[in-house]
């Protein structure tokens, strides 16, 4: 830009040059402060997790006796989920496997690769994701395909013959 302003700078004394650079420095400095004062809260506002005091609630998903040991069942249950400023009451599913008389695992219904809904292939005795053909064993382990980790699990508890599911998901 200097070539455009040459005619001006020829007339300037060293004193006015100092003043000009002071002005430029203040303009840049205050501009940066204003920009940062807007950008930093904006970034925190958009990127930080909301501070919600609403706790996840356990929900009653199934009677233990209705499940056969070793046979995965798709269990549909209702749960409350915090969705922004709302608490939505919605249907949710879990793939539940009763491992013995007292113990149960409940898998989150999304494939660990890209979140597609997988299903139990009764002939092949494994979980199959239709999107990119990942397969998982009944224990949730990856047998084939692009899935990066075993199936995610809901935290569960058995109470008085009932299977209770917490919305908290544990990643393997």
């Amino acid at each position: 830009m200097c070539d455009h302003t040459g005619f001006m700078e020829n007339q300037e004394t060293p004193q006015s040059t100092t003043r000009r650079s002071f002005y430029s420095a203040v303009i840049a400095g205050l501009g940066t402060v204003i920009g940062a004062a807007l950008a930093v809260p904006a970034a925190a506002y958009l990127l930080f997790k909301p501070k919600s005091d609403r706790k996840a609630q356990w929900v009653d998903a199934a009677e233990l006796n209705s499940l056969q040991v070793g046979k995965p069942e798709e269990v549909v249950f209702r749960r409350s989920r915090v969705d922004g400023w709302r608490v939505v009451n919605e249907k949710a599913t879990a793939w539940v496997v009763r491992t013995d008389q007292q113990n149960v695992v409940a898998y989150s219904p999304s494939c660990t690769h890209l979140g597609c809904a997988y299903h139990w292939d009764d002939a092949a005795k494994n979980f199959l994701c239709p999107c990119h053909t990942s397969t998982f064993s009944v224990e949730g382990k990856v047998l084939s395909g692009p899935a990066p980790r075993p199936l995610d699990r809901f935290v569960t508890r058995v109470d008085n013959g009932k299977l209770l599911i917490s919305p908290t998901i544990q990643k393997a």
Partner: protein
Amino acid sequence: MLKTILDWLEERTGIASAIHHFLYEDIPDSAGWHQVLGSVAMFAFLTQAVTGVLLAFNYAPTPGDAYDSLRYIVTELTGGRLIRGLHHWGASLMIIVVVLHMSQVFLWGAYKKPREATWIVGCVLLLVTLAYGLTGYLLPWDNRAYWGTVVTTQIASQAPGAGPYILRLLGSEGGAIGVVTFARFYAVHVLLLPPLTMLLISVHLILVRKHGVTPTLDDQDKPKKKFYPEQVFKDTVATFLWFAVLVGMAILVKVPLGRTADPTDISFIPRPEWYFLFLFQMLKVFEGPLEIVGSLVLPTLAILTLFLVPFIDRAKLISIRRRTGAIAIVTLAALGWAGLTARAVATTPPSTESPDAGLASVEAWRMIPAENLAAIGYFSKGNCGSCHALGKSGTGPDLSVSPSQKPADWLMTHFRQPAPTSPATQLTGLQLKAVAAFVAKRGDKDVEAWTSAPPAAVEGAMVYHTSQCGMCHELNGTGQKVGPPLNGLSDHRAREWVQGHFAEPAKFSPGSTMPPYKFNSHDLDRITSYLLEIPK
């Protein structure tokens, strides 16, 4: 490397010479601090745009969700309170700087030929700024927003001939404020006004550049100076000071968020935003058929006069020191405005609702119906918890996990004889019915209250329920409306009054049909404390 890129950019777009052209504009020698306000006003608009977009990322513009989403922004999101504060106080500070900018232009006579069009576009920008204030006022959807907008739309509906059409345009057929009005106000606030503002600011700036910054008489024989860096420095310092005041207010001054809009709330005193208070006060001067003079005729005439200023005063430019007429007009306008505003503030009774009532987190037990809180008490009095423990496994199901699915008559039989060996229940039929309704229908708030309500409050609710106060009074949304609703009792009644009133209602409220209640001192203490602790 950088130079290569810049040269390329300059050659293909001319951007460097465009910036240079913009920065090295010739301005008169007299230009200085008094001319910084236009830049500050433009920056104020930019701040509103940035913070407005940020709010919109988490705001749901419907009456059902607006309030909850705004509350979520200010209470749960990091920086949300600050960003809303910047937007809220930014609006007020923008109006101040726009009015100061216009006053400066008026005082210096800078609207004179050939700058009439610049002045007129500026007047439109002032109206646009006020329109932002008017439409944005509704968007928090609290009582302040709702009732303020009811009054505004009613004023607009008085326009002779056009009234019903204006009302229809505002989506307020029949005077009600609902989803349609809300959608219209939101659309105007975020879809219509911002592009209009950008267009008008562009035209305003082009006109300023076309005619140049207004010189004074002394400037004629002085060399011109450049906009950059001296005037840009002054503009930046002024902008920074304005912004520092804004950030300080956003951090230190509470932004009001009242309770969610309640069209049945008859105790709320609607007041407009401070910059419209003078209009509100002026309305009081004109009564009956003259009301329209204060509400529409005078404001319209004032706006018309403002637009016509350059055509009314066509005299030659003189020094500001000799513009006594202009100085007198601005002084009188400021005094009149301040007087009306001060009068409006002084005559406003104290609000029955704290301005940040919506921000206080209210414990669940203060929000659920008394019957539900009483049922929690009966549940423990009936020893139900010995089998149905909360949050852990017991002989019976944990009722905090999911509501009971059993039919009501099964529950009543079960309560009377829960197990073959259990003793007969001490609870009355009325109390058992409350427990049956509670375990079958309890919501999330009830469960929260179940684990956290203080025992004294539960006892108070049990006295309230056993005495069947709900047959005549409404509390937390349930009960009949024969007597006055009891929410927020502590706002207007003292403890002694409430206790005396129980014993002799007619003595304290002449004409009351409420029968006297002779509680023992323990029950009287509990029910009084309970009632005084339920918020409005």
